[in-house]
């Protein structure tokens, strides 16, 4: 079971308190009627499905109820960073090298 740090509660909780909510930073087109079928497909269906560092949304359903973002290594399931909605994505290459140099310590 994952242990996830909620950036709003500023505490670590077990995964059962949270709901996974898919890839983060996907922006809905401003005017859906104006976009091409391909762009609409990309928005609806195409996902990074990264093997490595994946940036994703979680919701603290059985806690504060708020959505936040998580950077997780999908090979080891290790969580490298959690941050509030509206704040910028952390530098993934720095996180990647931190994971490579100290895989056991890489926790938020």
């Amino acid at each position: 079971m994952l242990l996830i740090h909620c950036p709003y509660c500023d505490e670590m909780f077990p995964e059962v308190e949270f709901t996974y909510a898919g890839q983060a930073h996907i922006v809905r087109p401003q005017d859906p009627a104006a976009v091409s079928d391909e762009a609409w497909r990309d928005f609806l269906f195409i996902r990074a499905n990264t093997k490595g560092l994946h940036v994703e949304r979680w919701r603290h359903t059985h806690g504060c109820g708020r959505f936040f973002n998580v950077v997780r290594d999908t090979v080891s399931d290790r969580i490298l960073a959690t941050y509030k909605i509206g704040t910028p994505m952390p530098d993934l290459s720095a996180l990647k090298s931190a994971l490579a140099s100290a895989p056991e310590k890489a926790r938020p």
Partner: protein
Amino acid sequence: MTHFSALQLLKNALTGRDDWSAQWPEAEPKSHYDVVIVGAGGHGLGTAHYLAKEHGITNVAVIDKGWLGGGNTGRNTTIIRSNYLYDESARLYDHAVDLWEGLSQDLNYNVMYSRRGVMMLAHTVHDVQSAQRHIHANRLNGVDNRWLTPEEAKAYCPPLNVSPDARFPVLGAALQERAGTARHDAVAWGYARSAAARGVDIIQNCPVLAIRRDAGGKVTGVETGKGFIGAKQVAVSASGHTSVLMETAGVRMPLESFPLQALVSEPVKPLMPCVVMSNTVHAYMSQSDKGELVIGAGTDQYTSYSQRGSFQIIEHTLAAICEMFPTVSRMRMLRTWGGIVDVTPDRSPILGKTPVPGLYVNCGWGTGGFKATPGSAHVLAHTIAHDSPHPINAPFTLERFTTGRLIDEAAAAAVAH
């Protein structure tokens, strides 16, 4: 290759079993093939078998990063059924069941296909209505399925708890008698043996790192751990890692990879005569011929490539199993494991051509690819041989996510996802 027969068995029994030859040779990659298939699971090996047997294409390599049948073919719960709601799915999965019935004879290999029946329980009024809709839709498509009252369900599967005060009361069940199970490893081994005997190279422990294309966009081959291997046609049959590989060919896939867990109990005497599934409480169970209870459920909630899942999924699954089958509540579980399944937005596979000339894909089976193994391998071989889809897999295109013509088995909820 030795032809398996009762006579061979007797002869080897009398002569100390020294006469069995290797079922397939170790193959080193050649520099070029007509067709390279990535992924030596049941689907990939089956595709090679049908390419060789039905289309005469034998200059084929099946390449796997591990050992053959060591991915999801060796990790699934071996359930076979075809009671899907939509016409396209019914045709595809029923095609597979048709092939399952003759597969042992076709391969000269006992895949232990057992028509023991799959029963899907209804616990709520909504379940009853949905199950009956499925039954009617299935019967219109010529797919076997019928309704059982709780008493009939109990008679078909005695360990099932159908008492009215059960936590998950059984209001009835849909039964597909033609459905059942097969021995998963034997499917991979049987296809591998048959394909190798026809000249197909099976290259194990050789990861495919990238798909290469020429300036015109056409596929030229694959980059592997043992160097570049040229190919006129490449078929990707790599389940959870499909999107990673397709990305190297410049194709972004509507796939997400999730861990799916399963577990088996200690072996016991025959207890479960059939497969029982419950979508509402999210658990299913059957008994292997070794006597282990084989138990599974839905995927974990997050995407991952770790081949392991969270413990609460197992806990939830077993809680549901113990409510439905109180008699197993004190059994010990022997093993749990996870595999990585690639899931499409509509929970139907993507099976056929891609925008890249010479590149084919067989993916998106999500939690239920084993049952379709012979059917999907058969139609993919047709697609590769003719560079044009078989009528059965023609609707399962990648383009459907652009046109919107989905085959929405996700909404139909024929399966516990």
